[in-house]
């Protein structure tokens, strides 16, 4: 058993990446994720990798496209507005099937917003660039998760030759927690498709365009087949007490962790709360939510935004049960008391009696 370490989230990301064989970190300073790049500069020097501060987030994403194409495990860590600009090359990477890893420590949006914690980048993560592409999105709820999911992101990115995002709520990057670092991998996958000079083989190419509409449709269909395979195999979630709860709560990231406290408190009042925590925001765990919706008649989605997964939940529920929403935005962290109150409101509890 490895010894636990006490570490800041932004640093745990880099350790998770190093365990996954990451050899290059590209970045541009932005609060609240900047310590990731700073820490990477130190650690990459120690392990013989490269950390590079680029001129902009857009340049970072294009450099990641190049790094992915030559088969180097590379990543970046950014926040909010930076994540927007990182989308500059995400469509190129997705279309030409170049793996990459972008860690977004989400801050209050939209626009410059602020630097307080938030979950405001889910929508942009699901389609911030043009065309029919998909990215795998992982949502950690602890510093341990940040390290583990960054590690997992590298594995998934290479497995599917696709960009993978880790969306951490702002405070995850900033807070320190005890964690066990992932076991370093010893073997990296072979990448016969990488750019290395066309020696004894035909040229390898990453050319994400086709002037012929039929050719471009074929590219779209090929990608769509891959996305369907990802949907079949990579859905991850955590489910607690979903057999027959008085109310089912759907929440991701740190909010899901707050909900767990709510569940414990509510038990004292003989109130049964279920939780589904999507770990992959894409592919979304719609099947389990759909089934759970059959066993409860109240669903509440709680987010630190104005509702960015609530539409996914409604699609998953498909009208079986009304879906209510509670969110705090602008960098405000929702509390157990607020959520408990909201749950009681949804359950229409009068004088301690649940109106079932």
């Amino acid at each position: 058993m490895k010894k636990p370490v006490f570490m800041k989230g932004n640093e745990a990301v880099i350790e998770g990446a190093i365990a996954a064989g990451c050899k290059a970190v590209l970045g541009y300073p932005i609060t609240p994720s900047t310590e990731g790049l700073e820490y990477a500069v130190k650690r990459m020097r120690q392990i013989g990798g490269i950390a590079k501060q680029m001129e902009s987030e857009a340049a970072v994403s294009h450099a990641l496209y190049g790094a992915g194409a030559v088969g180097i495990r590379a990543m970046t860590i950014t926040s909010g507005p930076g994540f927007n600009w990182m989308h500059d090359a995400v469509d190129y990477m997705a279309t030409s099937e170049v793996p990459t890893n972008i860690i977004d420590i989400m801050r209050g949006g939209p626009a410059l917003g602020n630097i307080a914690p938030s979950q405001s980048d889910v929508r942009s993560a699901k389609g911030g660039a043009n065309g029919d592409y998909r990215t795998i999105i992982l949502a950690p709820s602890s510093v341990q998760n940040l390290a583990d999911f960054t590690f997992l992101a590298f594995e998934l990115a290479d497995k599917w030759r696709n960009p993978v995002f880790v969306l951490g709520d702002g405070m995850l990057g900033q807070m320190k927690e005890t964690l066990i670092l992932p076991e370093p991998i010893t073997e990296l996958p072979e990448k016969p498709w990488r750019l290395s000079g066309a020696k004894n083989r035909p040229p390898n190419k990453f050319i994400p365009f086709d002037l012929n509409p039929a050719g471009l449709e074929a590219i779209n269909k090929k990608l769509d087949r891959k996305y369907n395979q990802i949907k079949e195999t990579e859905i991850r979630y955590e489910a607690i007490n979903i057999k027959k709860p008085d109310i089912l709560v759907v929440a991701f990231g740190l909010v899901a962790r707050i909900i767990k406290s709510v569940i414990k408190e509510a038990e004292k009042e003989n109130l049964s709360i279920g939780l589904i925590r999507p770990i992959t925001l894409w592919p979304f765990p719609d099947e389990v939510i759909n089934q759970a919706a059959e066993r409860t008649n109240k669903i509440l989605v709680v987010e630190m935004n104005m509702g960015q997964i609530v539409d996914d939940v409604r699609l998953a529920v498909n009208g079986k049960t009304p879906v209510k929403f509670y969110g705090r935005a602008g960098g405000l962290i929702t509390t157990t008391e607020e959520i408990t109150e909201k749950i009681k409101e949804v359950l229409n509890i009068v004088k301690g009696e649940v109106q079932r």
Partner: protein
Amino acid sequence: MKKVFSRPKSLTKIPFHYCAGCDHPIAHRLIAEIIDELEIRERLIAVWPIGCSVMGDKYFDLDSILASHGKAPAVATGVALGRLTNPDVLIFTYQGDGDMVSIGLGEIIHAANRGELFTAFFINNAIYAMTSGQMAPTTVVGQKTKTCPLGRDPKVHGYPIRMCELLQTLLTPAYIARVALFDAKHINKAKKAIRKAFQFQMDGKGFSFVEIISACPTNWKAKYPECREFIKEKMLPVFPLKEFKTFQIDNEGEKNV
């Protein structure tokens, strides 16, 4: 009988799609000849741009990646990380004036200033050609385009941006030269500059840059002889042909001249 002329091996058999009189094919061919002569085809990765040369990968028999608008130098920066596992890799980018000097100005300056180890080819024909003839940052004063139909007016559009002069202000780049292709003498000079640029990269000296003044008969709406005159009379006074910077080694060690 001795073979004195043939298609460079680094080119595929696909015929160029470029318009008659366009200078891209000459630039392509010179680069391909140098790749053959230096025997570096199997070490090369080409980074292609958006613009008329967007299909460069079809003509060059090389590992290739297509960069988004103006972003070839950033992509090349990432491609250069491939040297972590494959130190022999050589890289060139190929961009036009709209791509490099407008939408990608930041990326080229910073890649040059970091001293990224790749060779940047810059085709300057003073116009957006693929989008059919709009004003470029390098359009010369008085030159008429679809977006400056009365001619480029410095009061409205400013003066053309001169890339070699701009990059020359940086201390880092190893080699900066501007060449042209309008006659045999200049084509030979251009070829020498291309060779030198690759050589600087192979020797690990740093970032190398060759600007190639080119004609665009289609969008200049002129026959090639008129294009030649336009280059000589209108472009060269603004874009003088010379080596702006060569990294030299003398008794006191390495220095930039």
